[in-house]
């Protein structure tokens, strides 16, 4: 039983990271219909920045905050400089450009920080006795902390989207850009804001993952794929779906590795099956909206 609880919290913690990344992907998808391929890599880059900051003596929370701001800026730049000009002319080419950003950002970290692994201290206490007993299992504070961060962020986002003018504008733009224009919303600025916000959230995911997973250039490669599957599973235009999807994938991974021995190395084949099952039988995902094609 205690093993089950252990695994459950492991899964929820890891799932929270996927949820954050999936959320970032969904925020962008809702407003522009694009999948930010480079989301994970921007996060990795921010984690590298954070590690340099902490090495220079900054407190961890400050390093994390500044790194998130960097994530915001980079993602906003990507929208304005890469995506927008291409989208106007040739929407199909956007994904190619985003793959280019993926590659460039990924290799940028190698260029400036080398290929050796680095460490990033955690926001939460990680010493040997930093755990809480729940139901007989020893749950590390860090895990709970990550889940906590997800919850706090969700609350903040909820407040932002439903109780502020900017949040209203973002929802409007995500729904109908032309009408948003008509009511005086500066659509371009809102798009930049959306991408920036997603960038910061994606950075947060990387910053939460790096301390335990170790910081290398490949930090977010796997998580990005898993978060994408999670986002699709939940419904690419549903933030709720992203979170649920992320947590589910996290739990799936934890229990797969834990209980089904021979499948523990087969994570991606399993994910492929999950992905195909969703896309073929319920393409809008669990919470997404079905799009009816009017021909």
């Amino acid at each position, binding site marked *: 039983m205690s093993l089950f609880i252990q695994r459950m919290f492991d899964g929820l913690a890891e799932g929270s990271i996927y949820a954050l990344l999936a959320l970032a992907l969904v925020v962008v998808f809702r407003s522009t219909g694009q999948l930010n391929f480079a989301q994970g890599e921007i996060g990795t880059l921010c984690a590298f920045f954070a590690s340099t900051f902490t090495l220079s003596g900054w407190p961890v929370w400050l390093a994390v905050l500044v790194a998130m701001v960097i994530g915001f800026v980079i993602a906003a730049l990507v929208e304005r400089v890469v995506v927008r000009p291409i989208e106007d002319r040739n929407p199909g080419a956007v994904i190619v450009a985003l793959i280019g950003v993926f590659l460039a950002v990924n290799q940028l970290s190698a260029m400036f920080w080398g290929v050796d692994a680095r460490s990033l201290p955690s926001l939460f206490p990680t010493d040997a006795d930093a755990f809480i007993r729940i139901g007989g299992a020893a749950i590390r504070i860090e895990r709970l902390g990550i889940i906590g961060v997800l919850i706090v962020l969700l609350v903040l986002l909820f407040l932002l989207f439903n109780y502020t*003018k900017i949040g*209203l*504008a973002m*929802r*409007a733009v*995500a*729904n*109908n850009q*032309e*009408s*948003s*224009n*008509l*009511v*005086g*919303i*500066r659509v371009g600025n809102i798009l930049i804001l959306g991408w920036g916000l997603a960038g910061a959230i994606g950075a947060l995911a990387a910053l939460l993952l790096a301390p335990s997973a170790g910081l290398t250039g490949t930090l977010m490669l796997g998580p990005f794929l898993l978060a994408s599957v999670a986002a699709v599973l939940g419904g690419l235009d549903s933030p709720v779906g992203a979170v649920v999807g992320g947590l589910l994938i996290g739990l799936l991974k934890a229990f797969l590795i834990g209980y089904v021995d021979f499948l523990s190395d087969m994570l991606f084949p399993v994910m492929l099956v999950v992905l195909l099952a969703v896309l073929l039988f319920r393409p809008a995902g669990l919470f997404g909206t079905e799009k009816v094609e009017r021909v």
Partner: protein
Amino acid sequence: MSEHLLEVTGLSAGYGQIEVLHGLDFHVADGEIVVILGANGAGKTTTMRSVSGMIGRSGEVVFEGNRIGSARPDAVLRAGISQVPQGRGTFTDLSVEDNLRAGAYTVKGSITGDLDRWYDVFPRLAERKDQRAGSLSGGEQQMLAIARAMMNRPKLLLCDEPSLGLAPIITQSLFKILGELRDEMGMSLLVVEQNAGLSLQLCDRAYVLETGHIVATGTGDELLNDDTVKQAYLGGVG
């Protein structure tokens, strides 16, 4: 010249290489409803969009005595012109109230007064204020679109084919409301329509637009009794 609320001269606009409007002249006086009548492809929506700043154009647009350059939509809004787009353009995923709030995006200060007022005019919207706008009927969405545009406290309302897709009975009550906006609130309206009968009855004056040129103008009654107009838009003479 500047006694009119809206004065448009020599309006030409188009998309890329293709010019759709060829030098239109029309005006809207204070407190009147002006209809621009035209068939599909005549250039009605292009006219709307060039006045509201959605597309570039040449020619002069003077509003309340001030020239509006090829202004951006939000600048046009601030000057006091709101548009109800073709097909309603409601934010389908947002609630009715959120739609109204979005309409007041450029308004500074409290808007609770405006919300109350428009809920009074459109009680059906008040009933459904937390409902998702996409679940409303066509007629209700049209009311919402009008209310949303009015939330901006405009002096001139542009309506692009408000009767599109609506049953005749709904169109009648819709036009009745538009008339009330003029009579009771002193609003000025520029309405672009295909539906000749009802709109000519509603309006004070009208223009007939064909392939980017204004081919006739007059009061609503004059045009209703004009033979050519009858032939083309009202199903025949007599």
